[in-house]
């Protein structure tokens, strides 16, 4: 056996313990560091971080109503994660999910309240989802074409399209789909009774179930099916994909359509499940929050679900902590920013360790 091969087998043997180490170093490590640094920032403002985190935990996870809100909030985030997993695993950096989300939401809000007047509820919901998915996908056609046939970097084009998409959504709400019955600029409202059903006796929207199905289905598709392997091959090595006879441009188009379609569905699930309408200037920018989570989960479906659950709890908890402790709600952004910094740092250190070892 040559030296190189001995090293290879050695590396293989280490992989078992390495996986746990890696989880500790590149996943849990940054989370702990981000919590601590954010805590220090709170201390600087004279707030006891333990009180703050305690409230977040209490309100977001431990109280019944808080937990229900947390679970309901997960639905759109899960759909966004599904779209991002498809794209990222296929090597396409669709950063325009917010625009796709918002246009999907507006489409659903424009259609459902009018359609419910003559169509049955289930059909209205179905149509709302379908239209939102299609509109989301449509908003990615331009970046997709540019990427697939001209090689234009999709990071830039999708980001640009998201700015346009957000503005367009606003224009649509204010000028076209405006509810004539109110003075507030917003779309017509889908009555609460016609929204997605709630789960059992709780206030949890069944959108949660749909979101979980979406993420798991995408995970299975990407890891277990021929189509998923084709997409992954295109993402990992487009030259090899072309060599193996795959149509790289067509598969690229498909990735964009799926990814943006899921972002559109995320909009629909939020509108048809929770909000009921779209108010002017509404832009929760969920997408930009979910991107780091999906990264942190290494594009893994189950990992993403777990992280989204905690993030969702953080969002809900922070909302009430903001009122009780006086920390602005946007403090979650500080926390997430810290998380990203430590995530990048851990990734860098891990990479360096690998280089020095191998």
């Amino acid at each position, binding site marked *: 056996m*040559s030296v190189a091969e001995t090293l290879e087998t050695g590396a293989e043997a280490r992989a078992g313990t390495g996986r746990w180490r890696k989880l500790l170093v590149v996943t849990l490590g940054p989370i702990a560091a981000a919590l601590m640094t954010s805590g220090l920032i709170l201390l600087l403002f004279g707030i006891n971080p333990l009180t703050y985190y305690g409230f977040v935990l209490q309100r977001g996870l431990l109280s019944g109503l808080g937990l229900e809100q947390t679970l309901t909030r997960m639905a759109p985030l899960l759909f966004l994660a599904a779209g991002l997993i498809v794209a990222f695993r296929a090597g396409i950096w669709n950063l325009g999910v917010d625009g796709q989300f918002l246009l999907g939401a507006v489409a659903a809000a424009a259609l459902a309240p009018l359609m419910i007047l003559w169509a049955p509820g289930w059909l209205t919901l179905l149509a709302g989802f379908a239209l939102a998915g299609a509109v989301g996908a449509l908003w990615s056609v331009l970046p997709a074409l540019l990427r697939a046939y001209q090689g234009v970097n999709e990071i830039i084009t999708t980001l640009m399209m998201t700015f346009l998409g957000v503005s367009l959504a606003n224009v649509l709400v204010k000028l076209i789909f405006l509810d004539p019955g109110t003075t507030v600029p917003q779309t017509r409202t889908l009555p609460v009774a016609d929204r997605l059903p709630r789960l059992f006796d709780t206030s949890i929207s069944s959108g949660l179930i749909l979101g979980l199905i979406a993420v798991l289905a995408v995970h299975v598709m990407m890891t277990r099916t021929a189509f998923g392997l084709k997409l992954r091959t295109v993402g990992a090595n487009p030259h090899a994909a072309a060599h193996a006879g795959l149509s790289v441009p067509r598969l690229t188009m498909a990735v964009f359509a799926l990814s943006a379609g899921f972002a559109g569905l995320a909009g629909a699930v939020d509108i048809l499940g929770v909000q009921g309408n779209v108010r002017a200037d509404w832009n929760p920018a969920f997408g930009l929050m979910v991107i780091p989570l999906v990264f942190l989960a290494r594009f893994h479906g189950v990992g993403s679900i777990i992280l989204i659950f905690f993030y969702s709890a953080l969002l809900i908890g922070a909302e009430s902590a903001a009122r009780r402790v006086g920390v602005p709600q946007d403090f979650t952004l500080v926390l997430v920013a810290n998380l990203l910094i430590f995530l990048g740092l851990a990734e860098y250190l891990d990479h360096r360790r690998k280089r020095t070892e191998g």
Partner: protein
Amino acid sequence: MRDLARSDHPLPAKGADAVGLVNVTKRFPGVVAVDDVSLTVRAGEVHVLLGENGAGKSTIVGMLAGLQEPDNGHLTVGGGRVRLTSPSGSLEAGISTVFQHGMLVPTLTVFENLVLGDTWWHRPPRALVERRIAELQRDFGLDVPLDALTGELSLGQQQQIEIARALLRDSTVLILDEATSMLTPAGADELGARMRLLAGRGLAVIFITHKLSEAYRFGDRISVLKQGQFAGEIPPEELRGQTEVDAVEHMVRLMFGTGSAAPASRRATRAPGPVRLAVDALRTEGGAEVLALRDISLEVREGEVLGVAGIDGNGQKQLAEALAGQRPITQGSVLLDGTDLGRASVAERRRRGLRYLTDDRLSEGSVGAFPVSENTVLKEIGAPPFWTAGFERPGRIAAHARDLISTYAVRTPGEATPIGHLSGGNIQKVLLGRELTGDARVVVFNKPTYGLDMQNITASRKRMREIAEDGRAVLLISTDLDELIELADRIAVIVEGRIRGTLDNDGSGEMRLRIGRLMVGDLEAAS
């Protein structure tokens, strides 16, 4: 501005040692790129380095440019032993290299490119540069429009700017790596005349080329490298005494002649069967960076190995891709067992038995991050038995991979190991196994042993023989003449996208010379 300030830098006396290699050896994993080579380049001479692909020319250039360091032996500059540990160290020692693919920043102006790399806290000395450029324009006819945007200039002009940059730095040694390959014949002549002028001023010029007539016309001294070793030299006295025809013949003999008889292990030619693959007047589209194929016609019969010889970059890759369906053809036809493949897709061609083993194992043949098992079925994604109803059958794929691993003696910890962790030779075995899975009828090999170690080369060649003996047809594209002479029944020589001639391989020592003459463009030898 240390360099630009010394405008009257004295050059060494003509004939003095400018730069040299002393018993230099450089190894890369699995190959000895340069094997105990000694040579001296003298001031005032144009020293031509000749050699086939893999002869070691680029490695020598790399060492002189400070990109690599010798494993054994050492370099000399001005007669004294030196270490060139970095590109800036090489520049400091007075060696400037003009690489085949320009090293200018296209978005900067010519002036900015010229002063790039100078001490950053100084204001660029515009007046001084203007004065010196005017001198260069006068002395060497260099055309240097200082305010032009570099990217908008022709390749020839960009090359002049690189030469001007070398002269501004008062280099004593100028290396021109394949400098004429991007130029028109007139541009090449102009460059040749300029090289002569520079040498006349006392510079040592190292000129690397494939074109023997250029070597004769522009060079003072010609050194020939073969498989990493120094194969011989034609000194100035001798070169001047020869006619071009004699000199070219001399160079061909140094480059390709082995003097030895046929390799003992040469594959015996059998009576070939019916035509399996027929290519007729094939053309592909060319472009700025890709050579077009023009009227390629060839036939490969059952049980036959047709070799395609040529210097790298003469259309071999395009030929392989056109056959495999990866590159659209604009004219002509490809017939497999008598049926026109027309516009059949890559997958369709593979199904019909036309297989292509790419020369680019890492970035085209395999997906490094994927396990060996997935790589073995990469060309059949979705097909039964490895997928049913679109769902992967991991057990079947793993079993297939384990089979392939044992049949082809792939050394890997297991089928789940990412293929990128394997050595080049083992990746090659996996790819070969993949191409031979199922009903392979015609196999196109593109440089199948390139970069492999001796043991894997022997194993690969044995495989190719077996494939032909099994009654399949083999198209073997290679830059290694010994490999072609060992394996091929006939050898076609490709030059600039055309088949220059096809020779029956008799395995004699003369074969190398005959192929070599065709490769370097001596048309008469084709008869």
